[in-house]
């Protein structure tokens, strides 16, 4: 079922062209036969998926189907799923079976969607290449020598390879948008507080946000209609109205003001990526949009500020893995301290330990003001740049990444080189605004994404803007030659 969209599957289920059981069986057989090429799944939940599919078929027969009813999807293995192993791609949670369900996965259950399995990721969502997984690297279906991006690399590869039509991801510093760009998908990071974080294994709580990864903006809108909802169980969930994200996809873009920040096109950007990005943006002029040069003067500061805030919050969040209540415990601890230190040292991977240590240092006595507080002040400067820009323009556009997907292994020895990959995505999470990546062409056979950023709670506009590009271009319909 390569390159079928959620929209097509939903229609086929409604028309009786196929059943959810047939789709689910096909998807699982497909994953079993092909995923050894990509390693995008950590767990396949076959029995549960088939039971969900049968329930969906009954619901469809009873005329009670919702748009996602019966559609097979996958969840990043960071969403707690009751009675289904949830690992965060870490040894420390290798055998963790949550006794509760995340709000996002529950909402998909309520909608009747079928979850075929849990996808691979960088351990605890820390990474930009999906090479930091205890369960092995994920490979990019467009070129298996290339990384799929991270941290939601398994979700991206699973959709790009056509094994599922949509998957959930999470984005703390670019973890939905960067793999979407590397794998030719549409991926949206909603406004902070738009989608519930309840039951998502926490990385950096003031930055984390979940969103969909799909082929098309129309499909992303369908998934957003399920996911985006106020949740009393998440204390940072925002009590705001949730629109029907599919309703405004066809709105005219005449008069749309697009801001082009000069800082997104400076040194470090691959000239071919710049050319592809600008060519995609040019398409909007024919739709009546106006392109306006703007400036986000503090953009460069997002990297140092992010690599204080995210590790600090991670060191605090990950203190819960102590070998006492759940997760890995070392063998034969000689005392309590030994149990904590060895369980954590043996259970966490290298990048996770590095970030915990950076965060612990930044938060330690005497350094708090110079690091965490300083980073939070810079965070406000970054936010203010966006707030000011959105008084002039409706959306901001630029590249998602400085280059297309890089080769597996090419950046693993230098964490700082890997961090610089996130230059265009981090500031979005710092400001808390929504942004998406939509396909914008290819450089040497590897996909390029167009980054579309909007004001707080403007997800419907972003999906509308991406959908309109997808009406006049066919990049999102391309599929890897290997398929």
């Amino acid at each position: 079922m390569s390159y079928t969209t959620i929209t097509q599957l939903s229609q086929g289920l409604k028309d009786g062209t196929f059943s959810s059981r047939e789709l689910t069986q096909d998807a699982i057989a497909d994953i079993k036969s092909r995923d050894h090429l990509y390693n995008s799944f950590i767990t396949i939940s076959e029995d549960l998926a088939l039971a969900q599919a049968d329930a969906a078929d009954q619901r469809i027969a009873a005329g009670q189907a919702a748009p996602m009813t019966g559609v097979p999807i996958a969840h990043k293995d960071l969403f707690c799923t009751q009675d289904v192993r949830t690992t965060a791609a870490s040894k420390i949670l290798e055998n963790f079976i949550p006794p509760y369900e995340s709000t996002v996965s529950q909402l998909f259950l309520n909608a009747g969607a079928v979850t075929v399995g849990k996808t691979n990721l960088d351990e605890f969502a820390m990474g930009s290449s999906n090479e930091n997984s205890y369960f092995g690297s994920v490979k990019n279906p467009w070129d298996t020598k290339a990384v799929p991006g991270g941290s939601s690399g398994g979700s991206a590869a699973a959709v790009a390879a056509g094994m599922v039509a949509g998957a959930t991801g999470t984005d703390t510093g670019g973890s939905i948008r960067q793999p979407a760009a590397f794998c030719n998908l549409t991926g949206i990071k909603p406004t902070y507080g738009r989608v519930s974080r309840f039951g998502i294994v926490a990385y950096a709580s003031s930055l984390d946000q979940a969103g969909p990864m799909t082929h098309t903006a129309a499909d992303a809108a369908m998934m957003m209609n399920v996911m985006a909802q106020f949740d009393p169980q998440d204390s940072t969930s925002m009590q705001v109205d949730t629109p029907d994200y599919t309703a405004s996809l066809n709105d005219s873009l005449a008069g749309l003001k697009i801001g082009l920040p000069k800082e997104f096109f400076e040194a470090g950007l691959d000239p071919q990526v710049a050319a592809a990005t600008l060519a995609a943006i040019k398409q909007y002029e024919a739709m009546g949009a106006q392109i306006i040069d703007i400036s986000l003067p503090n953009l460069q500061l997002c990297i140092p500020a992010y690599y204080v805030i995210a590790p600090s919050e991670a060191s605090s969040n990950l203190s819960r893995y102590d070998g006492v209540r759940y997760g890995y415990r070392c063998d034969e601890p000689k005392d309590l301290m030994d149990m904590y230190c060895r369980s954590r040292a043996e259970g966490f991977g290298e990048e996770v330990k590095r970030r915990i240590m950076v965060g612990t240092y930044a938060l330690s006595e005497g350094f708090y003001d110079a690091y965490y507080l300083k980073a939070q002040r810079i965070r406000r400067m970054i936010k203010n740049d966006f707030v000011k820009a959105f008084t002039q323009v409706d959306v901001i556009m630029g590249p998602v990444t400085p280059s297309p997907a890089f080769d597996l292994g090419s950046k693993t020895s230098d964490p700082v080189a890997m961090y610089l990959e996130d230059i265009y995505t981090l500031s979005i999470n710092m400001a808390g605004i929504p942004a998406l990546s939509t396909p914008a062409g290819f450089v040497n056979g590897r996909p390029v994404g167009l980054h579309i950023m909007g004001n707080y709670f403007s997800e419907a506009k972003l999906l509308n803007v991406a959908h309109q590009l997808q009406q006049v271009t066919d990049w999102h319909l391309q599929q890897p030659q290997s398929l």
Partner: protein
Amino acid sequence: MALDNADILKIAKLARLQVNADQVDDYANSISSILDLVDAMQKVNTEGVEPLANPLDTHQRLRTDAVTADNKRDAFLAIAPKSEAGLFLVPKVIE
């Protein structure tokens, strides 16, 4: 900001991570290079700028102090590395 081996061992202890002698140099190098990256912040004038904790500048919502969840003690104990008689078991703390 260069960290020495003693700094690494102190941070590792605070973070409850065992670091073996043969790993200390690697951590000192990689964490120092991350701190070098981060030190670009120190040149920035942030005087008068209020720290931003929640990107929407809102406070966390409070709820009424009422029981909202079922008692799932058995379910939670079932996934513990070691438990007995309704308790989490850890190595002996008091001799």
